[in-house]
């Protein structure tokens, strides 16, 4: 059958194409709600309950195969904070492999990925998610006393950070090649952060403890660069990194205290509507995912060792701000893709309207209303993201004498009021090289 010879066939064809390219099932809305639910559950700090919720969401088919990366990231984090480090590592490793595969697919899938609704595609993880999962894997290995394993993870973090701009550019280039009609500008944004202070902090102490003086020194220099880079990118006063020299001395500490606060940044939908009077009188709706920081109540984290004078943990990495900064570099690519897809949809509905020009007024009105409704409902930003990731990482190392010690972590607000505290008992003996205690206050 020759296309265009039969008007009704033509019309059906256009609708089918539009459906294939742009339809959004109600599943993506259900997943958005589920993500909120999971975030709330983490805030209550009942991690067993969060794990049950996640299982329930999977059994209801809300986390589907295409959302497997998210499912693994959330599980990895929940298992990490329940102290099941083996399971956590397995989930994070799965997520890491899937992100790697999904990235390769998304740059090699061709024109389909350019015009498909993001929500229908397999979630390929944000670059910052791919980086921070290694941080928690590293902590899993430290908890298990496997420093070599932890160092593998810090190396992977550094490698990913250093290659971030290449990766984002690779994605942009792939889409630009597919956009043969030059519908959008595919230039990625500028990347302000290319080092993770957290990875270099951990690597400095792990190399020092392993007796690799030179590697520890190199990692310390990178830590200094990362802290200065973050200060510059986020407008902090410069940090006196010389005061952290002791990190290179393995005899200066035997306990690493880590406190995580806040939550991952959240993606929200931003809608833009305009009417393009050229050619087909197109009505265009764009739905962009915008990333917003999730506010934290915590301004300081104090540690009291055996009820003595408190010392402050150092804010080593604002993971949420780094995440936002990395996302901003990728944002032009996401926006360009949204624009290209919206233009194709608008052209499609324009063609349908044109095909019904000679039809009855009732049909023309129906098509017009349907086109409008279709564009309104089918355009939905992809708001998927790792919900259980913390927002900030605070760290400090201390030297304890052999014996049993009580460590109390206090999370303070701007008025120095204690918002939350957690106590640990740590046993140190002559052979203790590095103990790790980890706490979390996700508010």
């Amino acid at each position: 059958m020759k296309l265009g010879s039969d008007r009704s066939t033509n019309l059906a064809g256009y609708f089918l194409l539009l459906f294939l390219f742009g339809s959004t099932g109600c599943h993506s809305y259900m997943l958005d709600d589920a993500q909120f639910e999971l975030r709330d559950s983490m805030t209550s700090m009942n991690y067993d309950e969060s794990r049950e919720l996640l299982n329930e969401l999977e059994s209801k088919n809300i986390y589907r195969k295409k959302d497997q990366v998210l499912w693994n990231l959330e599980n990895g984090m929940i298992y990490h904070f329940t102290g099941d480090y083996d399971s956590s590592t397995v989930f994070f490793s799965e997520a890491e492999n899937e992100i790697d595969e999904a990235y390769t697919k998304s740059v090699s899938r061709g024109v389909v990925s350019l015009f498909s609704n993001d929500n229908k595609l397999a979630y390929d993880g944000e670059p910052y998610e791919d980086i921070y999962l290694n941080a928690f894997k590293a902590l899993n290995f430290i908890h298990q006393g496997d420093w070599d394993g932890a160092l593998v993870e810090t190396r992977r973090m550094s490698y990913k950070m250093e290659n971030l701009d290449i990766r984002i550019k690779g994605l942009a280039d792939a889409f630009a090649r597919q956009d043969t009609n030059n519908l959008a500008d595919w230039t990625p944004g500028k990347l302000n952060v290319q080092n993770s202070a957290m990875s270099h902090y951990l690597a400095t102490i792990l190399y020092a403890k392993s007796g690799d003086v030179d590697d520890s020194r190199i990692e310390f220099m990178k830590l200094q660069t990362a802290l200065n880079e973050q200060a510059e990118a986020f407008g902090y006063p410069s940090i006196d990194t010389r005061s952290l020299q002791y990190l290179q001395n393995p005899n200066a500490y035997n306990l690493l205290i880590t406190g995580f606060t806040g939550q991952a940044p959240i993606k929200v939908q931003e809608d833009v509507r305009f009417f393009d009077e050229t050619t087909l009188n197109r009505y265009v709706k764009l739905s962009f995912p915008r990333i917003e920081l999730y506010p934290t109540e915590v301004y300081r984290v104090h540690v009291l060792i055996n009820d003595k004078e408190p010392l402050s943990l150092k804010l080593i990495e604002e993971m949420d701000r780094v995440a936002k900064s990395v996302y901003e570099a990728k944002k032009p690519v996401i926006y360009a893709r949204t624009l290209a897809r919206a233009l194709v949809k608008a052209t499609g509905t324009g063609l349908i309207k044109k095909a019904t020009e000679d039809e009855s007024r009732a049909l023309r009105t129906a098509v017009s209303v349907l086109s409008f409704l279709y564009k309104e409902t089918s355009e939905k930003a992809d708001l998927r993201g790792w919900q259980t990731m913390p927002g900030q990482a605070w760290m400090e190392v201390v030297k304890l004498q052999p014996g049993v010690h009580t460590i109390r972590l206090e999370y303070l607000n701007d008025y120095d009021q204690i918002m939350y505290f957690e106590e640990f008992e740590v046993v140190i003996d002559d052979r203790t090289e590095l103990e790790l205690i980890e706490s979390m206050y996700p508010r």
Partner: protein
Amino acid sequence: MKRTVYSLLVVIMALAACRPSNKITRMDPGTTTDLSGRWNDTDARLVSEEMIGDALTHPWLNQFSRENQKPPTVIVGTVRNESMEHIDTEVITKEMERAFVNSGSVNLVASAAEREEIRAERLDQQEYASFETTKKMAQELGADFMLIGNINSIVDESADSRTLAVFYTVNLELINVETNQKVWIGNKKIKKLVERRNYRG
């Protein structure tokens, strides 16, 4: 109607045929199986084979045996994984231990972790074993040489992540415990090019 039923049957049969199933085949451990491009058993085997051959044919062995009128005692220490992958270096060290023992020209003593367990057992015997069977304390054989090493990797990836070059270098060193003299250094390099062509798009 008949045609519709037949067509449906064909579709159902085709779908049934597409159901995934697990197939397991036993194979020769010497077979090369490169599936992911990551470090695997073939790499460990290649390293061990080359290193063992090299270590046992170098002059340090004969020289020591000649000078001391006894075979050297070796302890296998740690081979550190300094790569970006989780590599079980024990596969290499155990292969080295096996080769040393089977060569008959080297005495091998237990590693640090193994020693802990044996010492605990010996201590236990002092209290609970019969006098005739109790093993004596402080009779351990001191090692003359220690084998240590590391594995490093360099990764180079194309922007679209479809081509990956991984360069591994494995260094093993045999060090005289008394003098710190390095009597043998072995090095094995492995370079892999991973082309991910089979991604379903």
